[in-house]
């Protein structure tokens, strides 16, 4: 008799969708998420296209479904460390890192006031800071604080323990390992932003006023490090001329050898963020092809109405900092729209692509991947990849793959 339960690795939009679809037809589902919160990358966006809803909108609905469904169990700060067995009968070992903050946490923030240690916020892609004990983010689910043990001073400090009125902090919590028995596995490990440091000709990670599209999401997010104000990192100035460099690392055999699917749409969306704050700012988008497939065309049409947004076909060859002003000089191929070869901007956004997270950090699961790290097999083993672990996709299509794969997983465990 096969085991009826399903394990979902990764609790982003794809993983949540797959888990809920399977649970709502009666299967027990476990979500294993390595971050201290569920929601994945979508939680980091200000809005998501096409409807420009805040991410909490779609995510909260799913969290509500989790709360009301006793069949869904989730583990944060958790990773799969070993898988044995076969379809219908897997044994999965999970390592759960200590959070150091238990269920008692009421999110009162008192600990943060006293903690002496600061760290760069990975959630904000280092444009912001948090203390060593921190709230993962404003709408974090679960709403529970967490300690970064790489920087925390530990029991010798323990200031937070003293400040916490609710006995929520245990600095001596230890790592745990648990074993789960499941019939099928869904891999929803999603993506990481491509490492801009590798884009040396584009000033990636070198020039302060050259940021990534995901950093822009955090700068524009109301609960982000600048309370939603889009400003230049170097001096906090309001940008008046902004460039977007499309395919930064994507469609390039030296970097990501595929198109990342969403970054054209993301930059078009970012034009709405800029326009909301700066009615007069000029924007130039350097692109190879504007990929707004299917019904997204309408979104492109709307942005094309904006006279101060110029879309220029051409590949950017070089990006340099102008000494003194903090401005950035973009050198592009000589292209159609009558722009000079060199243009000066206050802020440049690299539309970097999505790289499968397991290309960067391997998964303890034997499943075929292509040369880029996308999962291309597993069906025969009752292992199904969904969302951006399978191919670069937007949220809507990711969710569709998740629903489809949930059905396949159900078929596997019902056999």
């Amino acid at each position: 008799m096969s085991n009826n339960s399903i394990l979902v690795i990764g609790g982003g939009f794809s993983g949540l969708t797959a888990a809920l679809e399977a649970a709502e037809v009666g299967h027990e589902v476990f979500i294993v998420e390595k971050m201290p919160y569920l929601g994945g990358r979508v939680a980091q966006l200000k809005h998501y296209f096409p409807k420009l809803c805040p991410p909490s909108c779609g995510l909260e609905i799913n969290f509500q479904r989790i709360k009301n469904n006793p069949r869904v169990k989730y583990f944060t700060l958790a990773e799969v460390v070993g898988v044995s067995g076969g379809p219908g009968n897997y044994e999965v070992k999970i390592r759960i890192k200590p959070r150091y903050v238990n269920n008692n946490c009421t999110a009162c923030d008192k600990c943060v006031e006293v903690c002496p240690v600061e760290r760069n916020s990975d959630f904000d892609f280092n444009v912001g800071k948090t203390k060593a004990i921190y709230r993962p983010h404003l709408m974090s689910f679960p709403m529970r604080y967490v300690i970064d043990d790489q920087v925390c001073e530990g029991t010798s400090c323990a200031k937070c323990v003293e400040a916490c009125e609710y006995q929520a902090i245990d600095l001596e919590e230890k790592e745990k390992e648990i074993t789960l028995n499941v019939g099928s596995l869904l891999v929803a490990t999603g993506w990481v932003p491509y490492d801009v440091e590798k884009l040396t000709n584009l000033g990636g990670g070198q020039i302060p006023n050259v940021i990534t599209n995901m950093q822009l999401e955090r700068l524009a997010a109301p609960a982000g490090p600048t309370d939603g104000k889009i400003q230049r990192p170097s001096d906090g100035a309001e940008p008046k001329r902004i460039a977007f460099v499309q395919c930064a690392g994507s469609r390039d055999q030296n970097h990501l050898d595929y198109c990342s699917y969403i970054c054209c749409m993301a930059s078009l969306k970012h034009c709405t963020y800029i326009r909301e704050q700066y009615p007069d700012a000029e924007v130039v988008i350097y692109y190879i092809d504007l990929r707004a497939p299917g019904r997204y065309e309408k979104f492109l049409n709307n942005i094309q109405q904006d006279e101060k947004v110029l879309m220029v076909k051409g590949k950017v060859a070089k990006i340099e900092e102008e000494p003194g002003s903090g401005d950035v000089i973009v050198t592009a191929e000589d292209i159609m729209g009558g722009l000079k070869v060199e243009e000066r901007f206050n802020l440049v956004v690299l539309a970097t692509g999505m790289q499968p997270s397991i290309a960067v950090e391997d998964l303890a699961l034997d499943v075929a991947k292509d040369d880029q790290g996308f999962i291309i097999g597993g069906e025969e083993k009752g292992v199904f990849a969904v969302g951006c672990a399978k191919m670069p996709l937007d949220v809507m299509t990711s969710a569709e793959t998740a629903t489809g794969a949930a059905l396949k997983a159900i078929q596997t465990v019902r056999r």
Partner: protein
Amino acid sequence: MADKKIGVYICTGCEIGENVNMEKVTEYIDEECSPAVMKQVPFLCGKEGLAQIQNDIDGEGVNRVCVAACSPRVMWDVFDFGPDVVVDRANIRELAVWSFHDPGLPEPEEDEMSDPLTMMVRDYIKMSVAKLDRKTKPEAEPIELDKTIMVLGGGLTGLTAALDTAETGYDVVLVEKEDKLGGFAAKMYKQTPTKHPYEKAEAPSINELISRVEANDKIKVMTKTSLQLIKGAPGKFKATVKQGDEEQVLSIGSVILATGWKPYDASKLDSLGYGKIKNVVTNVELEQLAKNGKLNRPSDGQPVLSAAFIQCAGQRDAEHLSYCSSVCCMGSLKQAGYIRELNDEAKAYIFYKDMRTPGVYENYYRAAQDDPGIFLTKSEIQEVTEGENGKVLVKVTDNLLGEDFEVEVDLLVLATGMVPTIADEPVLKLGYRLGEQIPDLDLFDGFAD
């Protein structure tokens, strides 16, 4: 359910106690609602707080609990006292204490009035108690549901849906109006790549899918069948279908709409030569020519040694189809391959606005770029005219070089778009007062919302 007995538990932790005049709150609630039990607890979600509530449930018979504390977004798992106790959360923390900014109003003159925050808190609690007082525990009334699923349309989508539904254990009725299954996929010569490395067109997989559907004894296939009417409700539909002259009523639980698409009416594209020049065809027609092994010039049956493809022939154009059809860039890359297959010297030109091969399909685009017989360029079409000997002249402006040029080809292919079948036909035939279609916000140019 036994008599209602309401307990109100007010948390004084999380800055609530310090900021709210609890005496006024409890006095007011007592007077207005007189709950059976009312307590202030310093840390309600902690062990002791929860134990107090549980004690009152066990000892006093409290069966309705107002938790006046934090948002139901948090601690939802903690305030759960089993199926017989109804809990309501009066969110006085997030909605009042944490979000309230003192507007600096003058002190209330009348003594019984409270400060604004205290008034908010007592009102939230009063509302919660009112809710608990009126709420009855819902009793499920399970009804027998029909578990058969009807799939409407037997193209690739409908076939896949039918097969997956059957393999999950449900009975399926597959209704197809034509005499054959497969939809457009069955009319294709080849299909674009479906597997890594996404570089080569493949033999169509549709026939295998059709055989699997036909061999599955959970799927009842009804071809040449039309849907007449759907009545009833989810889980309890009655669908009238007509096969030949015979009508039957099927009991079904759910409907999957998979009626696909129709090609855009190419007669509206006469400016691109369609209908006027013989050797101008649509991508749909080309697919059929290739499938039938007759990829020759329609005018005289001569071999095709060169072909041009005009992308977005109608799509992305407010006068025709305002959306992008998503598949036609891939389709033309595939069809350029058909032309190249005919003859080593054959040439294919693809004139596009943007090459839309998103995601992993980039590989297929790259493979075409690597083929010296395929020319791809971003361009604007100036004019399509008939040349000598049945040739078609296409004049374009190359957007990259800013130059006009002209090609003379044996065949011009218009990459036309797809229109959803449901755009102008009431496919679902719902017998509802609201109309035969599912009411739609019409956000998506005729596609289902």
